[in-house]
């Protein structure tokens, strides 16, 4: 039997796209959340986005009926997340930043607390060196938006302990998610397959072979991809995509993972996808 949702107190590090979406998922399932980011300005925006996403989740019928929404507390200090039953790290996909944040959080958390990284592709075994107790670290790779996509890729590092594995499986069960557990590797399964494919899709557009719309239309209509690689890229966020590709390239040497010039140029000019209203597609004035 799944644990009662009131048993969980979740801490989320990072109020960006994924931290916000995971917070929405948890709160909508009645689980209280402490969300930590660097500034009140970011936290105010995150609170507003969570409120909007809770409505979006309700609109899509994605939340369990009759369960009161969990309480959201925001903070600029990991110390306020010290009594969480699990911590999910969702800061920018930079190894240096993740190392710093994970070390701070691991020092503040009670021993035995599951420390979960929502990395898109940094190997969990590499990150285990950054926390106080490597057996407490595990990876979850939620897809965006986490409150609508029911499946989660879970990455078990070679040091991940059984109790942490069980705690995270229980948490995902309380969140109504289905977990597929895979072994550790750069990019795991989903990013290792999807990211170079998106990178190639951007290169195809840069080469003038086809338009953005036609690349997505072919991948949808001929190959059954649900949204097309470039619309997916806009949903992921092009900055995150480029960072994740770089992580993959540095760790695999696979040239297909070297971020292509079109992608790098879009990031440089601030066209980051849906969250800025402009990426491979234009989303009007209201980023969503």
């Amino acid at each position, binding site marked *: 039997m799944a644990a009662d949702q009131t048993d969980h107190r979740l801490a989320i590090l990072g109020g960006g796209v994924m931290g916000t979406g995971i917070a929405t998922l948890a709160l909508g399932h009645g689980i209280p959340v402490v969300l930590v980011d660097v500034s009140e300005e970011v936290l105010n925006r995150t609170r507003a986005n969570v409120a909007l996403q809770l409505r979006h989740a309700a*609109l899509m019928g994605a939340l369990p009926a009759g369960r009161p929404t969990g309480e959201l507390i925001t903070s600029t200090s990991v110390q306020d997340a010290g009594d969480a039953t699990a911590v999910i790290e969702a800061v920018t996909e930079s190894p240096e930043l993740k190392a710093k944040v994970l070390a701070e959080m691991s020092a503040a958390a009670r021993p035995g607390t599951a420390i979960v990284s929502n990395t898109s592709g940094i190997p969990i075994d590499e990150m285990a060196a950054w926390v106080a107790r490597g057996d407490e670290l595990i990876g979850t790779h939620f897809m965006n938006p986490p409150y609508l996509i029911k499946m989660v890729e879970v990455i078990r590092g070679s040091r991940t302990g059984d109790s942490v594995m069980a705690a995270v499986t229980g948490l995902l069960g309380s969140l109504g998610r289905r977990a597929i557990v895979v072994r550790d590797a750069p990019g795991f399964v989903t990013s290792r397959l999807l990211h170079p494919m998106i990178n190639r899709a951007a290169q195809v557009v840069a080469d003038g072979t086809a338009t953005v719309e036609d690349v997505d239309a072919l991948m949808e209509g001929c190959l059954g991809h649900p949204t097309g690689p470039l619309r997916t890229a806009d949903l992921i966020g092009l900055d995150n995509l480029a960072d994740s590709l770089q992580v993959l390239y540095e760790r695999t040497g696979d040239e297909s993972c070297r971020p292509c010039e079109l992608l790098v140029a879009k990031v440089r000019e601030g066209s980051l996808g849906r969250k800025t209203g402009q990426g491979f597609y234009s989303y009007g004035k209201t980023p969503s």
Partner: protein
Amino acid sequence: MTLPQTPGKAPAGADDIRGAVLQFLREKTLATPATDQDLFASGVVSSMFAMEMVVFLEQSYQVTIIGGDLKIDNFRTVDAMTELVLRLRDASDS
């Protein structure tokens, strides 16, 4: 929440609302669906876009869409959205 109405101007009727929703859809999706067409089944809009329509209707007609009204069936067609706005506005007037 009530915003000041333009003096002497009648509140938007069903045809005005239908027209405004269609215009919004045209601008955002470059499609002009039939007013009874299922926008989601026919792929005109995504679930991400549905929330933009909620916000658009709330801001355009000073209504609040919450609780049982916040469900996808109310946004499935232009006609359904028009009906929802008229019902919520009538309820807030009375």
